[in-house]
């Protein structure tokens, strides 16, 4: 690679993705219904630096999982560019380079029950990427590598002979991690990897992911709705709301000085385990219908600081101290 190591590993530039949620053609013709486009992700730009963990947080429907899927290529973006290690993987003209670049990213999914083939033995599940990417020259080599991977994620070599249903949720997630690592990726996209797990098992998986990151110099994009989990694992955090990135900040900064009113609201809404007795202001309202997002800033109907500008002009993500925030009130220093 000619790229310097200081270059970000991944860069998203104004990435957007629409989904066509129109009614069937016949209904549209007969009943005159218009085409309906859902802007799941719009104008999202950020970078992931080598060796860091960038977390994307937000509530259901904010587009965080769509961003993950756009990056690994499960969806094609409707707009914008995605550059991975100097290769524009959204460029249809660069197919060979794109394929090579994509080999170095893997994904871990939320549901460890649905993401493993129930008819395959664990060793086959873990060996598949090695075979597909032709990373080993002999069966013996594959076998040795699978045993090494299982040990790395805290499973026994004998576990390779079992089927996924013989494992608990946490162990299955370990298998998913072993499979993701078997292709020797540098970059892992983790979509809510611990949301389906009990807290004591979640702690095991988070600790494992942290250890693996240190051993293998991995870069993580970590998608989660859980701010507490994110505060443990992330170096930087991006907060999404209704398809847009509203704040991007180093983890310490985000928790010490949240800037966007939505970020503040999210932090306030986290149940307080310390029971400091702080008065919680429950947030009024709900996430608006993404098919008919409000004009201007999408958060304005729930925002205590909204004014006329917020209701008409969408804010851009602008630097604010160590963070970047998309909020007119922050830009105008009103809050």
């Amino acid at each position: 690679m000619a790229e310097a190591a200081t270059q970000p590993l991944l860069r998203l530039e104004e990435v957007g993705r629409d989904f066509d949620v129109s009614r069937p053609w016949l209904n549209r013709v007969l009943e005159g219904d218009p085409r309906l486009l859902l802007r799941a992700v719009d104008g999202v730009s950020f970078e992931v630096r080598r060796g860091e963990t960038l977390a994307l947080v937000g509530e259901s429907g904010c587009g965080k999982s769509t961003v993950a899927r756009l990056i690994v290529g499960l969806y094609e973006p409707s707009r914008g560019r995605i550059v991975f290690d100097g290769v524009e993987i959204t460029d249809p003209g660069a197919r060979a380079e794109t394929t090579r670049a994509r080999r170095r990213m893997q994904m871990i999914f939320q549901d460890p029950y649905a993401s493993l083939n129930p008819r395959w033995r664990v060793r086959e599940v873990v060996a598949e990427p090695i075979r597909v990417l032709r990373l080993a020259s002999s069966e013996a080599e594959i076998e040795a590598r699978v045993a090494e991977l299982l040990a790395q994620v805290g499973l026994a070599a004998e576990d390779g002979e079992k089927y996924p249903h013989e494992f608990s949720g946490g162990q299955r997630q370990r298998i998913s991690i072993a499979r993701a690592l078997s292709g020797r990726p540098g970059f892992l996209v983790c979509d809510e990897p611990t949301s389906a797990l009990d807290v004591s098992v979640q702690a095991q998986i988070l600790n494992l992911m942290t250890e693996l990151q240190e051993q293998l110099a991995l870069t993580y994009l970590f998608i989660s709705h859980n701010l507490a989990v994110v505060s443990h694992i992330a170096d930087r955090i991006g907060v999404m709301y209704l398809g847009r990135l509203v704040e991007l900040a180093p983890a310490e900064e985000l928790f010490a000085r949240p800037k966007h009113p939505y970020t503040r609201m999210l932090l306030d809404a986290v149940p307080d385990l310390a029971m400091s007795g702080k008065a919680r202001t429950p947030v009024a309202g709900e996430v608006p219908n993404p098919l008919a997002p409000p004009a201007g800033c999408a958060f304005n109907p729930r925002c205590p600081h909204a004014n006329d500008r917020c209701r008409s002009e969408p804010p851009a993500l602008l630097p604010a101290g160590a963070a970047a925030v998309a909020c007119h009130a922050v830009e105008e220093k009103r809050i």
Partner: protein
Amino acid sequence: MSGPLLEVKGLRVEFPTRRGTLVAVDGISFSIAPGEVLGVVGESGAGKSLTGMAVIGLLEPPGRIAAGEIRLEGERIDQLPYEKMRRIRGRRIGAIFQDPLTSLNPLYTVGTQLIETIQTHLDLAPAEARARALALLREVGIPAPESRVDHYPHQFSGGMRQRVVIALALCAEPRLVIADEPTTALDVSIQAQIIQLLKRLARERGTAVMLITHDMGVIAETADRVAVMYAGRIAEIGPVREVIHAPRHPYTVGLMGSIPKVGAGVGKRHARLVQIEGAMPRLNAIPAGCAFNPRCPKRFERCLRERPGPLPAGSNLVACWLHVHG
């Protein structure tokens, strides 16, 4: 009224199977006072939902109550015939489940469902029942109930739907509400709203609430006391503050340590979480003695042999031999 509203003593729930009897809830005792919120917390398979189901008499066969007794306002309800129990359910015990969409009938408007439930339990004329339905929707925080009452469940968002389910559970002013993971399917901002609602309910109406959840944060915000369940047994029960800040059972200690806390790990990059090695035993392989002993860092000989009963430790009751002297 004096004394507990709900009293459960030595409850045992069994599932007979071809390969032997599985004991899913094993000799648990607790009580809830009027106006009190008792949190029941535990990981998947700890038996917390089955405990709730046993109390409302909705255990699915072949599951059955094998021993123990359940008393509601002093009256024994665990052996009532189906018809009698059906009248108590909804009238004196309300239930709120995790998924609001499956708790509502998609073919009827929420108004129809509310009015039907109200008229089943209370002797009210249709107009009065409708007025009551509107008042309930208003009470659970649904804006403009007059226009919403004739909507179908799919026209509500997740948070609003859960409010409708709560309104349904409250129709007949039950004395006890069993809420099984009422906020788990909801986003964090909506979750906070529902928690406030449950708390207000207990405070203002004197309703006893049994709040079943895996989320210690929700318990910390809502409950007065908490029971921590493990492998069908209560490991520790006591005031929320005590259990969270001074847990005494090694399982509770591990559980509390494994919960990531907002801001706690920040800065100290990659601070490790406390982890409990291993996993909860399956129901067909619960170890002898204390069920937690294979994972316990402090186990000793007695733990392998003898099952610890609830022992007083401070203001908590703890099922752990470490507390045998005090």
